[in-house]
């Protein structure tokens, strides 16, 4: 069941209406029941997997905490991690492993192949596995105490607004909120409702509206010109941002209406002036998770800069592997690792180049160029992320380089027409209009801290016009509903 489906909206409205009327001591049970019910509506057969994962993590964390010796703590942590990661590897990576074994067998000329397994990926498995793994590591490091209330812990493991696609929460942030009593706050609920509505608009109008155009490029790469490939990469970047940030907005909004603060996941990442800054603004809860649980332990005790570079690349390979079982995700992760290493290695060179070109005397132009360059690099890497295979990605990249090497005024004119053909006439008007709305919203956020606070200072008629505009846009301009992109992970 999608966050933007009528069914979700109806069920969530009922949960919200009942939540504050239920005595505090039973609210955890109510939310836990609702979380399991939501999951069962998608596929009830995977409920035992969630119950098993929850139970194992609960017991393991207590055992880790009870042990006096570090070695014993480590053993319990390793066992817990193995229990958590086993289903992830089984459901997500088995067929990737089989296809690579088959390829290797074919390479040595043998005529034998393993059959791919018929497996459905449990919804949200990558997200809740990382959340629970983070919890076990935090207990091991002594950063949080093992939760003793099984019901509260089960809710931490399956809280429905963030269970399927994050934000990936830390026990230190979420567990105590699930324990404490939340009181109904009208202004908070109203502001969260606006955030949900804004998420709906981004998802149903902008992200879903771009699906057809992006598919035209990535599903038939051999028919795409270089300009179409470049446009496809840019449009996909806008689509995935609108899609995933909307998913986070709705998750944060729904949890907020229930009095629970979830972590922010995005800070206008496409305005980042460097790749390093991009990763501090995009999918922040995953970036922080990878930094704290993979990158820092990998770097610990390493003195040489090249060892830190290797750790960065390994961390981004892990990020790629987390996203999907495919070489294209690994290549995407590898590219980002290389971006960061190259950016660090060329720091002085770039500083000198900026001084030589006198860009330091024009900070606005310099800032614009940095943002444009970062966005281009991110779009390039996303060709691998979105393409249906590595081969398809290379077809598109080749088309881009061929196009750029034969650039002329005429080819630019033809290119613009090609890009136009990715849309229908009405779609392109709708897209540019709502893209302008999105950018205006982001501009207000940058200028005033919060676009909603800015709107709150305006006359009532202006505010209500804005709310009606959002609601009417969702009703009138929604594209056919698509699953959230990150639900597949």
């Amino acid at each position, binding site marked *: 069941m999608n966050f933007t489906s009528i069914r979700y909206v109806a069920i969530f409205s009922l949960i919200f209406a009942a939540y504050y009327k239920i005595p505090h001591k039973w609210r955890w049970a109510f939310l836990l029941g609702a979380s399991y019910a939501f999951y069962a509506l998608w596929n009830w057969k995977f409920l035992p997997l969630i119950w098993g994962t929850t139970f194992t993590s609960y017991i393991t964390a207590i055992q880790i905490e009870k042990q006096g010796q570090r070695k014993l703590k480590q053993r319990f942590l390793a066992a817990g991690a193995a229990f958590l990661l086993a289903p992830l590897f089984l459901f997500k990576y088995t067929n990737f492993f089989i296809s690579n074994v088959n390829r290797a067998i074919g390479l040595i000329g043998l005529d034998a192949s393993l059959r791919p397994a018929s497996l459905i990926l449990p919804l949200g498995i990558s997200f809740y596995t990382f959340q629970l793994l983070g919890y076990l590591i935090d207990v091991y490091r002594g950063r949080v105490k093992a939760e003793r209330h099984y019901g509260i812990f089960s809710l931490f493991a399956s809280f429905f607004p963030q269970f399927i696609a994050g934000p990936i929460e830390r026990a230190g942030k979420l567990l105590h909120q699930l324990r404490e009593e939340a009181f109904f706050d009208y202004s908070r609920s109203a502001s969260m409702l606006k955030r949900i509505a804004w998420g709906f608009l981004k998802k149903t109008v902008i992200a879903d509206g771009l699906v057809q155009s992006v598919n035209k490029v990535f599903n038939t790469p051999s028919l795409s010109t270089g300009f179409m490939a470049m446009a496809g990469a840019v449009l996909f970047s806008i689509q995935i941002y609108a899609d995933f940030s909307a998913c986070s907005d709705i998750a944060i909004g729904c949890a907020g209406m229930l009095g629970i603060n979830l972590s922010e996941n995005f800070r206008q990442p496409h305005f980042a002036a460097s790749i390093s800054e991009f990763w501090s603004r995009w999918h922040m809860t995953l970036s922080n998770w990878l930094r704290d649980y993979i990158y820092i332990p990998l770097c610990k005790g390493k*003195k040489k800069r090249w060892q*830190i570079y290797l750790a960065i690349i390994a961390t981004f390979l892990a990020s790629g592997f987390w996203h999907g079982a495919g070489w294209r995700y690994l290549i995407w992760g590898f590219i980002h690792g290389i971006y960061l290493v190259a950016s660090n290695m060329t720091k002085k060179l770039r500083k000198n180049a900026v001084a030589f070109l006198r860009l330091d005397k024009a900070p606005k132009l310099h800032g614009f160029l940095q943002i444009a360059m970062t966005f281009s690099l991110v779009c390039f890497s996303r060709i691998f992320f979105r393409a249906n295979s590595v081969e398809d990605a290379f077809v598109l990249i080749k088309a881009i380089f061929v196009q750029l090497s034969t650039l002329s005024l005429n080819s630019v004119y033809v290119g613009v027409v090609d890009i136009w053909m990715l849309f229908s006439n009405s779609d392109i008007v709708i897209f540019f209009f709502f893209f302008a709305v999105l950018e205006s919203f982001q501009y207000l956020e940058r200028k005033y801290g919060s676009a909603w606070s800015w709107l709150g200072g305006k006359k009532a008629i202006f505010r209500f016009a804005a709310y009606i505009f959002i609601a009417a846009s969702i009703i009138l301009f929604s594209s056919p509903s698509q699953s959230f992109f990150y639900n597949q992970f």
Partner: protein
Amino acid sequence: MNDNMSVYKKSFIEAFDIEESEANSSFRMNSKDEWDSIGHMTLIAILEEAYGVSFETSSIIDFDSFDKGVEILSSMGVSF
């Protein structure tokens, strides 16, 4: 300024490639572009070597500002 503080400031200058005047209390992870993941771990490596200490993973995670670093190192026996 005592020797340890001077070494501490020099470590920041070396790790993040910043001016001496920037190495002060206002230098924080979230407000400075120079403080990225690579710079962070480079700083940790330089400090470990300079003071002969070994940071716990939790301390590396908590080390998010100039002042916090002083607090962490003080708790490890480095006097400022």
